[in-house]
């Protein structure tokens, strides 16, 4: 079967209204397969809300989100329960690191493995050697292998971020959404995350929300600038940086 579409995700006319306040107004965009797509914009622009809609944490007032998995029929994500969206190959990392604090780093990873999500499976099945190896190699990649048996709650903030990213990767998703993955990381660590993401890009598509412009410059293929719930502009990093309106509403504030 041929590849159906070069776009993995199609966001069509999404609007969200919270008690009369429009968090998003008629947002339409497409995400290219195997790219790193950034959503940037000032606080309250609706970036996180958009991710919430894609993974069904929030229901849109109108509009649809369509997912085009590789070699499969397109799937409409709107109206699907969140766990089924995960089964279809979409992972999400939250803004506040949310790992299972009372479980070990390894158990966190085991719970995130793809498949075996039914009750019977989780009682009877144990991870295969292959899966264990996958977990170990990912933990080595993010530098948490030595802390495998640590309680996740005992990790530092940056390490929790790493762990949550690794938890998404172990699911081998086709689309992965990262909400501020670099928050709480130092410059060298952020750079390292960027390099890892570039490597992963070969196998999946990555949507990132981030404020760190150096990070954006380092890895972004496409940038969508959101402002007050609307798309301000979309294009390459360079064009976004050069855009006058973008400078005025967002970038300008950061400059001294």
């Amino acid at each position, binding site marked *: 079967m041929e590849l159906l579409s070069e776009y993995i995700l199609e966001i069509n006319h999404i609007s969200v209204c919270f008690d009369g306040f429009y968090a998003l107004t008629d947002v339409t965009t497409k995400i290219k397969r195997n790219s790193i797509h950034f959503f940037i914009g000032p606080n309250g622009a609706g970036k996180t809300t958009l991710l919430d809609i894609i993974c069904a944490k929030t229901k849109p007032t109108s509009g649809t989100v369509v997912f085009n998995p590789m070699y499969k029929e397109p799937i409409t994500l709107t109206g699907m329960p969140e*766990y089924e969206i995960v089964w279809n190959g979409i992972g999400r990392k939250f803004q506040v690191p949310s790992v299972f604090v009372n*479980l070990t780093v390894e*158990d966190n990873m085991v719970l995130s493995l793809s498949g075996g999500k039914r009750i019977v499976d989780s009682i009877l099945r144990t991870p295969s050697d292959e899966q264990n190896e996958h977990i170990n190699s990912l933990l080595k990649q993010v530098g948490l292998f030595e802390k495998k048996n640590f309680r996740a709650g005992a990790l530092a903030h940056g390490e929790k971020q790493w762990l949550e990213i690794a938890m998404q990767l172990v699911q081998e998703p086709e689309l992965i959404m990262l909400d501020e993955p670099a928050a709480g990381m130092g410059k060298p660590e952020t750079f390292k995350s960027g390099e890892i993401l570039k490597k992963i890009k070969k196998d999946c598509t990555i949507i990132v929300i981030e404020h760190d412009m150096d990070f954006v410059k380092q890895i972004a293929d496409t940038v969508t600038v959101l402002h007050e719930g609307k798309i301000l502009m979309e294009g390459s990093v360079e064009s976004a940086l050069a855009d006058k309106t973008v400078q005025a509403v967002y970038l300008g504030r950061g400059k001294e």
Partner: protein
Amino acid sequence: MFKYFEKYGCNLTFSTIVLVLAVMPVLFMLGILSGTSTLLFLGKCIAFAIVAIGLDLIWGYTGILSLGHGLYFALGGYAMAMYLKLQATGGNITDFMHIGGLTELPTIWRPFHTLPITFIMIVLVPSILAWIIGYFIFKTRVKGVYFSIISQALTWAACSIFIALSPYTNGNVGITEIKSIFGSIKGGANQGNLFFLFYMSLATLVGVYAFSRFLVSRKFGKLLVAIRDGENRTYFSGYPVSRYKNFIYVLSAAFAGIAGAIFVNFNGCITPSQMTISYSITMVIWVAVGGRGTIIGAVIGAFLINICEYNLSSGSTVEIWQYIIGAIFCLSILFFKGGLVGLAQEKVPLFMHKLAAKASKA
């Protein structure tokens, strides 16, 4: 050796408890203990331990505080008592039905003529009710204190219904004048029956404990903890969380039903007071004091609190007992979140290290 204890401490403690219980009837036979009341009491404690294990699964592990497990406990108890009552009347209509104006045995009593169906009903009735309640509550994502309130309200409603339907349930008096499934257990002549019942109950406790330990040692158990600590993350790791919650809720209700059935055998009667909210909350106190999220803590708590109550709540302390237990509950919630087991897990290693340090110095 120390590591070994850390790993198998729970099972070792449980084995010790089981052994001590198993020796009890022998002590009676040897004449060291006399009077069967102690054994009847311990039998009830076994039932309490079983319901406490179920509560620990749903509260300690999954973080859902149910204040209505008395309902499931009583349902199991009534199912058992209905069978035992029919045994006592020879399958005929009972006195309270006559008084209530019934002329023949009501349909809901009919399945309880035979023991196998009764056993099925003991598990099935609480499970189905829990499934229906759980389905609607968990699907609509009601959680936290709202769930606790709903579970309490439903228990209250059920209790009122059981009192109101007195031609069928004998209202406030409950089902009385019944023997155990192995015949009468009162008096010296029937000691054999009592011992047999006691050991069967003990075996049930071991089974329930082993099954629960098995469940929590699997990925399933880790997932329960994951739901407790980060329900959202669990959804977005691809788990149908509400189904998991409902499963564990139904399982704990089934345990409560089994516990209720065992309780009736030792108690010799069942009344709606086992269905009240205060009774349900007492069960929660056992788990809290023993230690949440450990299974063994629930067993220890159930035995300890009941043994204290048994020995202390006689004579002048009857009135004070409620205050004591309330105070213990508050203290354990405020200062020892992990209960007794948590306290031991924290302090024993420290103590051992100190001992080791002293030994190496000397």
